[in-house]
């Protein structure tokens, strides 16, 4: 009896579902790809499927953190994150190369370029935030504007070419620091998670975001500045998208406006949903989203290992999204609950009969 209660308690925990999903994906890999968990050292760096998953998931983790906050506060998603990534990358590379299409040495200070890149992304986030928080436009329609225009803006910044920055120190962010065997993006992702986690824990921002997400009007009536909080989450989301854009750009030491962050907005939304967060806003779990992001990347790598081409990936992801949102939908939950209670009633009736 006591054991049963324990199982129920564990199953009811928020991180239960995301962890189960991650385990399922990993288990599939154990069967299909025998060498999945092998980690070897090649040329002084760690090498293996697991390392690859954790490494490649970094941008997604950073995006998912921002997306979680936006989802919680405004009950909608920011679908412009992929486009904002390209804007940040384009700004950064363009400053580093001094306007040329290709550069072998920094033309301007590295720190300045990174700051401008992040600022540009934050401005994009502020634009979204203004439309959503101040003008009360549905989040996904408001962000649709930058979703389509963003890559165009990035193209304008780079004058339609792909800007290359072939400098060793620019590759550090997407590669390795010195002789450290662990890829830098992993550190970047962990750093972002830690910073946001601490901000949410040490200040009241986390609580405020949840309360605005649950009931924006009621929060305003108790004295919270709902508009400001919503606006802030979009700025943070834009900033984080910019950071993800810089990592992605550093990996390929260039700003490719057509390919950086392609389809990543879908993955980020998926990560948030998989993390057990309700897409309609309210309470959120940052760790859930992070685990969700790693799950998505594991799924992507698994599908690649099973020879699914990059173009066809969205089909599987779309199906997963539909299944998750169906499971989350209130109508489905209600139907399930009535089914369960009916089952329980029958069971007690049967037990009562036995006694």
């Amino acid at each position, binding site marked *: 009896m006591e054991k049963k209660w324990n199982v129920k308690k564990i199953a009811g925990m928020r991180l239960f579902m995301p962890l189960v999903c991650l385990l399922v994906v990993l288990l599939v890999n154990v069967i299909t790809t025998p060498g999945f968990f092998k980690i070897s050292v090649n040329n002084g760096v760690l090498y293996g499927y697991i390392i690859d998953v954790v490494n490649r998931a970094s941008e997604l983790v950073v995006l998912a953190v921002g997306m979680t906050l936006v989802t919680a506060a405004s009950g909608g998603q920011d*679908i412009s994150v992929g486009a904002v990534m390209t804007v940040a990358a384009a700004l950064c590379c363009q400053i580093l190369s001094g306007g040329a299409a290709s550069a072998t040495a920094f033309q301007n200070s590295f720190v300045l370029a990174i700051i401008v890149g992040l600022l540009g992304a934050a401005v994009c986030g502020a634009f979204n935030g203004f439309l959503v928080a101040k003008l009360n*436009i549905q989040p996904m329609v408001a962000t649709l504007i930058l979703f*389509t225009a963003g890559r165009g803006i990035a*193209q304008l910044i780079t004058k339609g070419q792909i800007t290359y920055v072939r400098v060793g120190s620019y590759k550090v962010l997407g590669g390795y620091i010195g002789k450290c065997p662990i890829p830098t993006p992993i550190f970047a992702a962990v750093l972002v998670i830690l910073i946001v986690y601490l901000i949410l824990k040490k200040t009241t921002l986390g609580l405020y975001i949840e309360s605005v997400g649950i009931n924006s009007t009621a929060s305003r009536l108790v004295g919270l500045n709902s508009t400001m909080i919503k606006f802030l989450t979009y700025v943070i989301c834009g900033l984080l998208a910019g950071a993800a854009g810089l990592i992605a750009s550093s990996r390929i030491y260039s700003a490719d406006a057509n390919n950086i962050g392609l389809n990543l907005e879908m993955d980020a939304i998926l990560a948030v949903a998989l993390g057990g967060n309700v897409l309609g806003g309210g309470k959120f779990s940052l760790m859930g989203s992070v685990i969700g992001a790693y799950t998505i990347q594991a799924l992507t790598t698994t599908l690649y290992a099973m020879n699914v081409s990059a173009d*066809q990936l969205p*089909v599987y992801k779309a*199906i997963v999204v539909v299944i998750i*949102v169906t499971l989350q*939908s209130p109508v*489905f939950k209600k139907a399930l609950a009535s089914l369960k209670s009916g089952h329980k009633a029958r069971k007690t009736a049967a037990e009562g009969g036995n006694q």
Partner: protein
Amino acid sequence: MKKLTNRRKINGSTYLLMITVLLFIVMYGAGMIVFASKGFAKPQMFLNLFVSNAGLLVIAMGQTIVMITAGIDISVGSVTALVCMVAANQMENHGTSAYMAVVIALAIGLAFGLVQGVLVAYLDIQPFIVTLAGLFFGRGMTSVVSTDMISIKNETFLKWANYKIYLPVGSYSKRGNFLPAYIYPTVVIALLVLVLIIIIMKYTKFGRSVYAIGGNEQSAMMMGLNVRKTKLKAYLLDGFLAGLGGFLFCLNSTAGFVEQAKGLEMDAISSAVIGGTLLSGGVGTPFGTLFGVLIKGTISSLITTQGTLSSWWVRITLSALLCFFIVLQSIFASVKKKK
């Protein structure tokens, strides 16, 4: 009192429509003056707006209906790509007749409409999430069918695509010969759809229910309207129109490829919004959407006629216009609330 607020509401949306029509006339007029030497003033140039946007017009009609129910459909671009690809693949590699290809196209559209409609109407999932999944699913399926470009060489199909209908208007060439202006059958179909949708939205029970649900879902339900069923019907009609529009698009491009019609959903949504459809639902007319489509067409033909600007400017201008109109709507809404 109630009548007064009602009149004010109609006024707000009429203003928006008037701004749109005026904007179109100003833009086109400016184009005629600035690019007169490049033939912008010829009747054919005007008809080309319809020729190159026939598919978009049909798709935007569906989008308008869904948006009036306070929903949205961002899968239309992918559905178009899928329809083109499947039609091209069937006709070229499997010997299907062109007539059968039409049926397949409509079936694909209806299937998307059915699945998305059920998820939105009966499971109460946000339309945006559902159709975002549809967007990725459609694009992914397109590449499952084929990752190469397939150009269509089916005779019946090409005959449809290249059949010119000459009109009594036209222009004179430099030698003084009369060149009659022409349109393609796609334009006729698109205009027929436009008229049909105007009638449906204005005079049928379904059309009135759509407006009622978009205006206030709760009170529509209390009035005894079947909200879920009407929503499902709206998405079905939208899917059907997306399939048909996709086929018209295919007649225009005569090919299927993965990157086709990327961002078409944005064009459709912005056409509807620019045409006066409110994002919050309940307000909008197919007639207004027509002008939204024409404005989009004018922007792209102005930019191609100008010649030196990159094609990205079409998207950026359109996004800016969309943003402008969204802000305008929001201002109208807040003014209304204050009064």
